[in-house]
């Protein structure tokens, strides 16, 4: 379960006359195991910020986010690193491409980093590349030159390769054609059927319907 409790978040832009952007005051919601929650609301309302606070890449100003009985707001850097490794998969909106590393290596890396053996990691990654419909001749190339949709699928593969209990998805179906979108939707469903708690941002009604999500409308949640 993920529990967001009385969370406040703002940004202070020191180099722009200390302008303060308040994103949330007293944000509360829960996600149960196996549930898919979709964050909804207009651009700039704070959807991505929520995922980043849960993942620990944005500071939580006030309140608590509880995962595995741990409060992200008070964990040390190395505790967050450990929690990420054992529990949280995160698919950012865009792949951060690492020069000279092949698509296959990008996907294998999370497995190898948590001690999986090379052979196993290789087999799992190849299977996922096939499931994701990535052409074989791309596997050994750097995703640097891939199309937007191909890069996105590599990014998803990297986030999905391990069996982790929590998944954070920032627009995973955004730049995909309908066939590839359906492939991703099925992968997300499969994760959910295995009890994974999922929080996603899905720009299209189609994905939300197909995934049978529970919507959290941030326009309502953040009205105060």
């Amino acid at each position, binding site marked *: 379960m993920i529990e967001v409790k009385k969370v406040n978040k703002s940004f202070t832009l*020191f180099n722009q006359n200390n302008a303060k952007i308040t994103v949330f005051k007293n944000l509360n919601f829960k996600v149960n195991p196996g549930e898919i929650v979709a964050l909804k609301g207009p651009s700039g309302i704070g959807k991505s910020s929520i995922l980043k606070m849960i993942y620990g890449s944005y500071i939580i100003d006030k309140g608590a986010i509880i995962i595995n009985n741990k409060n992200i707001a008070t964990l040390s850097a190395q505790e967050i690193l450990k929690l990420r490794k054992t529990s949280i998969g995160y698919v950012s909106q865009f792949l951060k491409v690492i020069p000279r*590393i092949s698509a296959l290596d990008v996907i294998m890396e999370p497995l190898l980093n948590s001690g999986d053996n090379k052979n196993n990691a290789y087999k799992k990654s190849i299977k996922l590349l096939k499931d994701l419909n990535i052409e074989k001749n791309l596997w050994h190339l750097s995703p640097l030159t891939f199309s937007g949709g191909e890069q996105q699928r590599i990014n998803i593969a990297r986030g999905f390769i391990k069996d982790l209990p929590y998944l954070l998805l920032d627009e995973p179906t955004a730049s995909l054609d309908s066939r590839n979108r359906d492939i991703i939707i099925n992968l997300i469903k499969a994760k959910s059927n295995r009890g994974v708690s999922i929080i996603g941002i899905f720009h299209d009604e189609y994905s939300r319907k197909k995934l049978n999500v529970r919507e959290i409308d941030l326009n309502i949640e953040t009205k105060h």
Partner: protein
Amino acid sequence: MIIPILKVTNLSKSYDNIVGCKNISMSLYPGEVLGIVGESGSGKTTLINCLSGNLEPDRGKIIFNINNKETDFLNISESEKRKFIRTDLAFVHQNPRDGLRLNVSAGGNIGEKLMSVGYRHYGNIRSLATKWMNKVEIDKSRIDDLPITFSGGMLQRLQIAKNLITSPNVIFMDEPTGGLDVSVQARVLDLIRSLVNELNLTVIIVSHDLAVIRLLADKMIVMKNGTVIESGLSDQVLEDPQQEYTQLLVSSVLNV
């Protein structure tokens, strides 16, 4: 509970009346990569020189804990310290010429390092050296060549091989890609990254290049005027910096 492999408390070092670094406290855990950033003169080199035994700090505590053995780095005898530095620490210099002997062959440079930790058998040394030349992508036919015949990128890769071949526990790197062309930098970075992953190295790396830190470091500290002004997970410090100076640093580069 995991014990930090390195714990630093209130470390300070001045040069006469110039502050080098001041009241530095931090912890590093096994397998972590820590990035140190900050403007020129902010004390980055001073700090890692103190931590690696190249400089004697004025005050503070440095505790290493390697395989459950605690070493109070500033309170051991000179000979113990020299042995500890030789077997447990490694230092990759910005200028590979500072970390290599230029009048000794590539293989000799690596072999010397092995001998310093007790290797004696010539065949073993030679084969291990060859293996490491291969690992850092230097053709093994170059093993008997002098480093002066190597390019800058090759020299840096040789220095890395020389430092890592003895499996040190904590590795310090001061701007390891600083003196290299951009195209060569990518290759050296890529090498460091793959070695860090493969060997699960614990590393402290100084770089003024935030992209390097983003690529390699799990955690980072930001230094200014000799002190640490911000620290945390690298992605957190880069994406949601809390200090005015860090925001300035991050906003002055594109796409980190």
